[in-house]
């Protein structure tokens, strides 16, 4: 029987009140003992956790793997390994695949494929067939197959009528829509934010206005139908303000932000580094500060990795041709820490709120419970390189860098990760 003994960890969980550090014994993936000053059982692997925080594993609401169709970017196995190494024990998979998750088949395929992995996988079904924004997909059938929420992934739903009907239909079947807010006519094919940087780079700019107009539209639709909506990866100051005002009015709106938008601005693009080419684009310092303020005052509910794996060939090309996105499962915690979040805030934004948004129960840290846990040291550093990277892809601007905030150990469904770096 495999026994793990976490010695002197600080437990952070809404239902766990003791501030005193605790020893936790895990046997075969279940919590067997919790208490202070426990005796180390014979044969247990001891992890010194005195500088560490123990929480339920992170839940990431915006992840891309390559299955089906793009397995060379990320397989279910490599993606789950990277997630667990990032302390992520639950994640929502976006339907940006070929084919998209737009019917029961793909949802069932993903759920079957994820059996035996140490990560709870929640596939997000597409709102429209092939994510084309024309015909509504079979949302109810996908819901029966296990989809908890719906989104057209990185395709905005351009047609206001379709968005309106989808919100209403989803309300009827008790499902939630995740919206990627961007007006395609305004955004065009611009690869970067419209701002001083796009001007000096000679690149077309994607204005923050393209995001804000769609957020304003969808807030009005959600209010009109008295239903909930979740915005994925908001990026601008005005977006934060629109959502803040909507929440104050009692509209059922939630939102998340990508970790990289909390630490980078468009200024990093001065030498056309395609590893920073993401969608929505990195914006200005003013936007970044507004996102931080939104996190602090509760306007922004969750932080996501927006993990988007690509082979080197998709990045090592001219900036205009490079694919959007960076991998982020293992850098989610370090980036959130770099952004200045404290352990209790991390647990709010990475553990508790994302599960509320998905509508899944928060696992407990209690005797006899299955261990769905992450042990992290917010001050420890590690190097993110080819030996520590568990993803099949390596498209991250942080590759090769020393990062602060380390997942020491993580465990879920009997699978565990133990840092050896």
């Amino acid at each position, binding site marked *: 029987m495999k026994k793990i003994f976490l010695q002197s960890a600080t437990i952070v969980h809404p239902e766990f009140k003791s501030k005193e550090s605790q020893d936790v014994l895990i046997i075969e993936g279940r919590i067997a003992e919790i208490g202070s000053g426990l005796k180390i059982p014979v044969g247990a692997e001891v992890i010194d956790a005195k500088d560490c925080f123990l929480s339920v594993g992170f839940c990431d609401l915006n992840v891309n793997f390559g299955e089906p169709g793009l397995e060379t970017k990320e397989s279910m196995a490599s993606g789950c390994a990277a997630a667990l190494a990032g302390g992520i024990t639950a994640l929502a998979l976006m339907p940006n695949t070929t084919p998209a998750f737009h019917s029961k088949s793909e949802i069932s395929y993903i759920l079957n494929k994820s059996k035996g992995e140490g990560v709870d996988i929640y596939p997000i079904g597409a709102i429209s067939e092939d994510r084309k924004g024309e015909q509504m997909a079979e949302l109810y059938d996908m819901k029966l197959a296990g989809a908890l929420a719906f989104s057209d992934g990185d395709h905005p739903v351009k047609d206001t009528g379709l968005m309106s009907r989808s919100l209403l239909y989803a309300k009827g079947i008790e499902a939630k829509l995740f919206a990627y807010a961007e007006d395609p006519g305004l955004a065009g094919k611009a690869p970067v934010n419209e701002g001083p940087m796009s001007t000096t780079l*000679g*690149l*077309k700019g994607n204005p923050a206005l393209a995001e804000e107009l769609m957020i304003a539209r969808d807030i009005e639709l959600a209010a009109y139908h008295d239903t909930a909506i979740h915005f994925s990866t908001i990026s601008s100051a005005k977006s934060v303000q629109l959502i803040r005002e909507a929440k104050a009015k009692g509209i059922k709106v939630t939102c998340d932000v990508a970790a990289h938008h909390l630490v980078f601005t468009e200024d990093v693009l001065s*030498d056309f580094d395609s590893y920073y080419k993401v969608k929505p684009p990195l914006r200005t310092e003013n936007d970044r500060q507004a996102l931080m303020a939104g996190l602090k005052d509760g306007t922004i509910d969750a932080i996501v990795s927006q993990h988007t794996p690509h082979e080197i060939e998709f990045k090592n090309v001219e900036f205009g041709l490079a694919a959007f996105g960076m991998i982020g499962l293992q850098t989610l915690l370090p980036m959130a820490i770099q952004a200045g979040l404290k352990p209790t805030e991390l647990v709010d934004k990475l553990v508790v709120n994302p599960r509320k948004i998905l509508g899944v129960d928060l696992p407990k840290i209690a005797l006899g419970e299955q261990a769905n846990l992450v042990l992290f040291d917010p001050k420890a550093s590690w190097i993110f390189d080819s030996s520590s990277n568990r993803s099949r892809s390596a498209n991250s601007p942080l590759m090769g860098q020393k990062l602060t905030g380390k997942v020491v150990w993580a465990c879920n469904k009997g699978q565990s990760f133990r840092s050896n770096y």
Partner: protein
Amino acid sequence: MADQHPKLSTKHLLGIKDLTTEDIQLIFETADNFKDVLNRPIKKVPSLRDITIANIFFENSTRTKLSFELAEKRLSADTISFAASSSSVSKGETLIDTVNNILAMKVDMVVMRHPHAGAGLFLSKHVDAQIVNAGDGAHEHPTQALLDAFSIREKYGDVSGKKVAIIGDILHSRVALSNILCLQKLGAEVMVCGPTTLIPKYIGTLGVKVEHDLLKALNWCDVANMLRIQLERQDIRYFPSLREYTMLYGLNKEILDSLNKEITVMHPGPINRGVEITSDVADSKQSIILDQVENGVAIRMAVLYLLAGHRA
């Protein structure tokens, strides 16, 4: 030329952004010498005798390509020219592979035009050759800006203090950005003028004046640099028709004569006669369009010669 081979502060010429004012002055002084050479019966010098230069144009060009080729030949460099289709990526070969294949044949310098902004910089990080940017998307076209400023200097003796209006499609122009940076480094005042839809929203952050009225711009400036309407680079329509563009921004003799001073007219070519500029203006004595072309060869000789200094 001095015995000691002078050189630029940068190994590549990717944009005006990277040049110091001293670099620009050095290029001008060197170009003065080469311009003398070009007016001699024997127009050739042996400066780059042991250098091989590849001209790779992923986008159509007549004047810039010819100008570079001629500059290279006048410097006695060995040259190869390669007009690649910009769709070579869709055929499966990446830019790095294309260029490395050419470099495998022992090439020292690459002069490249490319439809994507930043392509020159990208290449400079990935291949072992000196890169000269002959235009990358709507980013920079440094030798054009240098020859434009050189032509202003030739006409007025100095660029400093001059007022230059760049008129036309600023959004899609690489000439505009390089010109703004180059003229500012030399102490000129710059204004951009064009349709509201073709002026980037944040252009003011570059420290230029913005004007939408052609007549006001012309009355303000000493030099008007008329840009070509780049219809091929517009993926969507930014103005209703060329006819309407010409009504608002076409420079004709009547407007030119109505000004209270004699301004100089420039154009980076190729000219759309009757669109941004009428024939009588293009061919008038106020136009220095053909001087620009002539100076282009001297400027490109200077740039190549000074970059080769890094090899010594």
